Every structure is written in structure tokens, then in C-alpha cells.
């Protein structure tokens, strides 16, 4: 598992308010189905921004960007590209 994916799972565990164990989730499992609310997704976003020193632009504030570990990982990869 990539280092980013591990960090993302830890953030989901702390802020995602998931009803399932974040470390047991599949990369493409639906995080909203796993209990993440809109409000929790804001916390996840803010924690991701702090962890990876990025800011999600408005157009990326989409439900689909935060719907799975894989989706979050690719968004972080996009935002940290070239570093």
C-alpha cells in the first residue's frame, strides 16, 4: 500500500466517522455507505489539506472526490503532482 494511502486511511479512521474499520476497507469501497456524512467529509478534507499541505479547489469539492480511498488518493496525487 502506498504511503499516501496509509496516511489517507489514518485520516479516515480519525475524522471520517466511519461505521467500519478504515484499515479493513477496500480501496474502492463507498465511504458514504461506510458511514461518512457530508459534515465528516469536510473534516476529512481539512485533515487531508493539513497532512499533505494542499488545498482542494472548489471544483474538486465533489462528492465523487471523497467517495473512496482510491478517489481520494488520486485527488491527492493530482494536487501534489510535481512535488
Amino acid at each position, binding site marked *: 500500500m502506498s504511503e499516501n494511502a496509509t496516511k489517507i486511511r489514518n485520516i479516515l479512521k480519525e*475524522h471520517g*466517522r466511519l461505521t467500519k474499520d478504515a484499515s479493513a476497507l477496500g480501496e474502492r469501497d463507498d465511504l458514504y455507505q461506510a458511514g461518512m456524512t*457530508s*459534515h*465528516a467529509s*469536510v*473534516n476529512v478534507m*481539512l*485533515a487531508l*489539506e*493539513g497532512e499533505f499541505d494542499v488545498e482542494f479547489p*472548489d*471544483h*474538486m*469539492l*465533489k*462528492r*465523487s472526490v471523497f467517495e473512496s480511498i482510491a478517489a481520494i488518493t488520486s485527488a491527492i496525487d493530482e494536487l501534489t503532482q510535481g512535488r
Partner: protein
Amino acid sequence: MLRVGVDLVQVSRIAASIATFGERFVQRVFTPAEAAYATTPERLAARFAAKEAVKKALELDGVAWRDIEVARRASGACDVVLHGAARAAADAMGARLALSMSHEGDYATAMVVASCERS
């Protein structure tokens, strides 16, 4: 065509977000005018619920929370004021919005009804 959106938010969770992320949370989600008036978790929770209710009513995605603003009239009644991508989407639908919010104990809720000329 009428559309509706409703949302329920736990006040203590908004308070926890503020405790965890501080001003970053407030500034990312609320406009300066909202933050200036809504100085309690209850009021912020009701406004967060309102933003989510608008998103549901208009099926908005990829818009900033600050682009959905709750504006308070002198009477205390509140209206939705949209900006940026949210405004553009609503204008494209010819949407007019009505908002009602409430909070009691650890819960805040908001309902939005949208009258849309175009779907």
C-alpha cells in the same frame, strides 16, 4: 417544478470540528458575514444544514460551501444567497429558493424548497 432539500446536523459535531480545525473550518465553510453572526455551534450547524439542503434541492456538486450563503434579514428570517458556480447552476434552472432552519438541543436542521422554471 418544485424541488426540496433537507439536512440534519449534530451541533456537537460542528463544535468538535471547530475544536479540531479552528478557524480553518469556519473560514472554509462560512462566509465572513455568516461567521460574524453565527457565533455559536447551534447557528453554525443550522447554516451548515442549510448549505447541504440547498445542494440536495438543486443537486449541486463541486461547489464551495461559501458559495451557498445564509443571509439574515432584520426580521430574523433567513434567505439563501448564492455565489459563483452555485449561483450559475441555480440561474440555469431559474430557481427561486425558500429556506427554513431550526435547532433544538444537539440537532440543527434546515429545509429548502426550490421553485425551478427549468429542470
